[in-house]
């Protein structure tokens, strides 16, 4: 209980400090109200209250009018791209079969999930990929023939890796999670998903 109070105070401080800089009084009031509202959540399983503390990008993209701020968009995308960590061994493509099972799995990071189990990427929730999987979502574009149409050059591999690692590097307020940046997937898992998309042997490209 004490711990919860402390983290609540920390959360309040962060939320407040983050936005109070040079804002109008009414905006401060709004921040205050939002902070109050966040008391409506409690930590559960692996999901602590720190998850409610927004980073700069989340905060920017929570404003439905974000598209108007062209300068910020370019600046944030640049920052996000600069922070992408590529694999130290220089290899960007893993195993497409492992990538397929990662793409299928929707578990991970929910308070109901076992944190010792690896997270999935849940690609099929939003994207079409292989022709065999008919149960796919349409929130994101179809990735069918992703590698077939783009090839698998070093540049394409780097782009694909970075896009999965941090999609905001290319589209600041995309719906897609930042799988590397937010530590949802491991480096090896991202390589495997890159292979699912780019390997000529992958059913995505057949």
């Amino acid at each position, binding site marked *: 209980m004490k711990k919860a109070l402390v983290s609540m105070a920390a959360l309040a401080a962060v939320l407040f400090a983050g936005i109070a800089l040079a804002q109008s009084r009414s905006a401060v009031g*709004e921040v205050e*109200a*939002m902070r*109050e*509202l*966040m*008391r*409506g*959540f*409690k*930590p*559960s399983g692996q*999901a*602590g*209250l720190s*998850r*409610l*503390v*927004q980073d700069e*990008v*989340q*905060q920017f*993209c*929570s*404003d*439905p009018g974000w598209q108007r701020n062209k300068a910020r968009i370019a600046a944030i995308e640049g920052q996000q791209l600069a922070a992408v960590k590529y694999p130290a061994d220089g290899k960007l493509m893993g195993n497409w079969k492992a990538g397929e099972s990662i793409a299928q799995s929707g578990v991970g*990071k*929910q*308070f*109901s999930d076992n944190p010792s189990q690896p997270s999935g990427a849940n690609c*099929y*929730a*939003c994207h*079409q990929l292989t*022709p*065999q999987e*008919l*149960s*796919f*979502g*349409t*929130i994101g574009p179809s990735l*069918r023939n992703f590698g077939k149409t783009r090839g698998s050059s070093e540049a394409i591999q780097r782009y694909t890796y970075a896009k999965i690692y941090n999609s*905001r590097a290319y589209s600041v307020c995309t*719906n897609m*999670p*930042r799988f590397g940046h*937010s*530590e*949802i997937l491991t480096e090896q898992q991202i390589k495997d998903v890159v292979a699912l998309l780019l390997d000529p042997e992958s059913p995505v490209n057949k």
Partner: protein
Amino acid sequence: MTRPHKPVVAALLFAAGLLFGTGAHSQDSTAKALQEYRDALQDGNPAELWEIKGEDMWQQPRGPNKVSMEKCDLGLGPGVVKGAYARLPKYFKDTDRVDDLESRLVHCMVSLQGYTRAEATRRVFGGPGAAADMEALVAYVSSQSKGVKMNVALAHPREREAYQMGQKLFYYRGGPHDFACATCHGEDNKRIRLQDLPNLTSKKDAQRAYTTWPAYRVSQGELRSFQWRLYDCFRQQRFPELLFGSDASVALTMFLARNANGAAFAAPAIKR
């Protein structure tokens, strides 16, 4: 559009008709068949089992004070149940807050029946073999608004504030996945896997979505309240746990309920 060469999963063959379409005809017939399935469930919705249990619970003297809920004011005066759900959430003077149905029921269980808040909220969502009293009460009260037009007011300043905060929460991105409600519910004609997603920023979808909760969820065999709907959305959003009846939950409900104004309430419904 591509055609599937070898649909390996026979069970999904027809569902696939929705996506690939072996022609407009098959698309239409699949959609029609699924609609027939959904229609077939309407007669004999197990939600009625929760409704009769909830009605009984409403009328029976319960709690340390051994009184019924029949003096509970859901906004239309003590004991008035008919049409009450279609006007909630609303501001209540006695609690000095905006309440939705569930938080109001907790208030009545505490103030009338003498339960502690902890007792009243001990089991708010049912699980296998253990239905929740709260969901039965919700089923009963909401069923008494069937056919009533949604009419949620923004008359009191606190109601307007709740709506605005609910709207902010709807667009609030957070957690490891950067998800907001709007991530999945902000555009027309989107699906997650094969599941259609309502665009809660459009009037038509918002109306249809809100007026069909609470619902009997076939996959869980449970009657699910709107509080449960929000709780489970935030779980999948990778947020911490939404507290039952919290200001956040009521504000978001206010935003969604108000956007459904004008549509006839049609729940408890049944959903796959």
